[in-house]
């Protein structure tokens, strides 16, 4: 049997806006993936530790407070340090268009902004999982 794709959905930083993160988590779970959800207010260290411990293929992070440039970078730095760069990272939330090139330069594969359908995220997962 094929191994189920494992995805960690995480909320770095202090914002409690988890409606989007929880919707994505549930929609991906309904689509047949193995989903682990961290809950809100996680530090970058905690998130990377969970990602490694849960042996996930993807890490999806959501921030709505505007702290994405700082916190996504921290997560990417720690992933590198922990030699866990094989995990495919994507992000979402209230993220201005102008910040996206910078976030992608950190190694984040995709940024999903408000209005994205779950179908589009599933498509992204499928496209990036097939390489393994």
């Amino acid at each position, binding site marked *: 049997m094929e191994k189920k794709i494992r995805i960690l959905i995480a909320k770095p930083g*202090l*914002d409690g806006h988890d409606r989007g993160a929880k919707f994505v988590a549930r929609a991906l779970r309904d689509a047949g993936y193995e989903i682990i959800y961290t809950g809100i207010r996680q530090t970058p260290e905690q998130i990377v530790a969970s990602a490694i411990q849960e042996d996930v293929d993807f890490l999806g992070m959501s921030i709505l407070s505007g*702290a994405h440039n700082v916190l996504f970078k921290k997560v990417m730095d720690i992933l590198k340090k922990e030699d866990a760069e094989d995990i495919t990272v994507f992000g979402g939330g209230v993220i201005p268009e102008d910040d996206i090139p910078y976030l992608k330069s950190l190694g984040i594969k995709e940024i999903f902004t408000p209005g994205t359908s779950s179908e589009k995220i599933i498509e992204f997962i499928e496209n990036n999982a097939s390489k393994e």
Partner: protein
Amino acid sequence: MKKQYEDLVKKLIDKYPERQKEFITGSSEEVERLYTPEDTIDIDYDKDIGYPGLYPYTRGVQPTMYRGRLWTMRQYAGFGTAEESNRRYKYLLSQGQTGLSIAFDLCTQIGYDSDDPMSAGEVGKVGVAIDSLEDMEILFDGIPLDKVSTSMTINAPAAIILAMYIAVAEKQGVTPDKLKGTIQNDILKEYIARGTYIFPPKPSMRLITNIFEYCSKNVPYWNTISVSGYHIREAGSTAAEEIAFTLADGIAYVQAAIDTGLEVDNFAPRISFFFNAHNDLFEEVAKFRAARRLWARIMKDRFDAKNPKSQMLRFHIQTAGSTLTAQQPDNNISRVTIQALAAVLGGTQSLHTNSRDEALALPTEDSVRIALRTQQILGYESGVTNTADPLAGSYFVEKMTRDIEKQAEEYIQRIDELGGMVEAIEKGYVQKQIQDSAYKYQKQIERNERIIVGLNKFITKGEKPKNLLKVDEKVELLQVEKLHKVKADRDMKKVHESLEKIREISRTEGNLLPVFLEAVKTYATLGEICNVLREEFGEYEEQLVL
């Protein structure tokens, strides 16, 4: 007549079917083709609807409503440093805004100083950063605190921020009995939906009742709590869930205060509420009317409150941020107008209208002005303010008011059976209900069963939003620098003594407000005070429900 109408409809829809099989509200409640006196037959005018300013307040809490005075136009604002926010407040006041509403950054809301590792990246982002009394002094510089009313969105550390406000007023020569305003101070909805909790429920409830007690004696015109459904709705609840869970939170606070020995009519008149105004106009109006009636009955029947002010549900409304689209952001002006209209037809006491660009960033000054002007147009041009509760007597609205009230009553009963709101939260019941509703709503959008203009219909390609407000990353450095200067300039002995006093009182049944007041005056920081309390009270762990 009725038979004739039904035959007519049947003939018509055989030939021309209606646009949809089913018509539903924003909360997925089915709506009939037509409402008639039959739908309101069991509603008694005097008992259930009544008159504005009289029990059960279905039609409003003021006898003359907006003929006497319009609602308070109060835009929630704050970002970056205290200096920048102070400038925005002065601008808003100069544009005819009538009250202030302070947005704090998340570090402040969770009781971390700006130099705490937990604060990295968040300083000044969603509101203003407050570390010590000095920041509060700058924030209200040149704003006479005996003249404005100030609403502050602060919950877990509400008692400490209130102490800072009292201390700033004192420096301006304003005594606490002259202060008017509101602290949100509603921890239960933080556990349910908003997320800025610090301590577990028990010590958190104690902080809240400490505030009730302190203010009833010293700050008599202060609204000591704003029990909030806003964030519950934003998290995806239905209209009925919004008022049910909010009033159930209210019940928990009133009960907690009574349990500590307070007299209901001494503190209940200062309890205020905060709701959401969503897109479905009639459903929202019905919701506000149902909430007023239900709270009046709860206060009278459950808590035996005698003072009419204890029975009156007074509330602030904010339009629904979650309905704003990042696509074609100017369309949001229309959404906000409909939502604000619902708030006014629902008899709100104060209102925040969201700005068009808030699905993308914090609003620019231009966007905020349009949002404020929307309120002014409703207030001065639309004519909807000329008579109290103009939708009363509509078969549809009265029926829906009663239906929402009934639904909410059922939820409250279920929460009672679970042992009250704290237990219902700890069991994840409330969170699960909200999440299920949110999931259902979002799926309707994804399946195009619910149309959102510009998002899943009438899409335009390739337009880029312009002129977004960006909080300068330098704010964090500036704020940390300022904090270190404050810390270097204080009398450390006094700071330590005041912090130890807080520790001491926290272990007793005593009221913490006086020692908070003492501590903030020594420029002990918010983070230092909260850390003492963290050590004494512990921290709340999220109930994960998915």
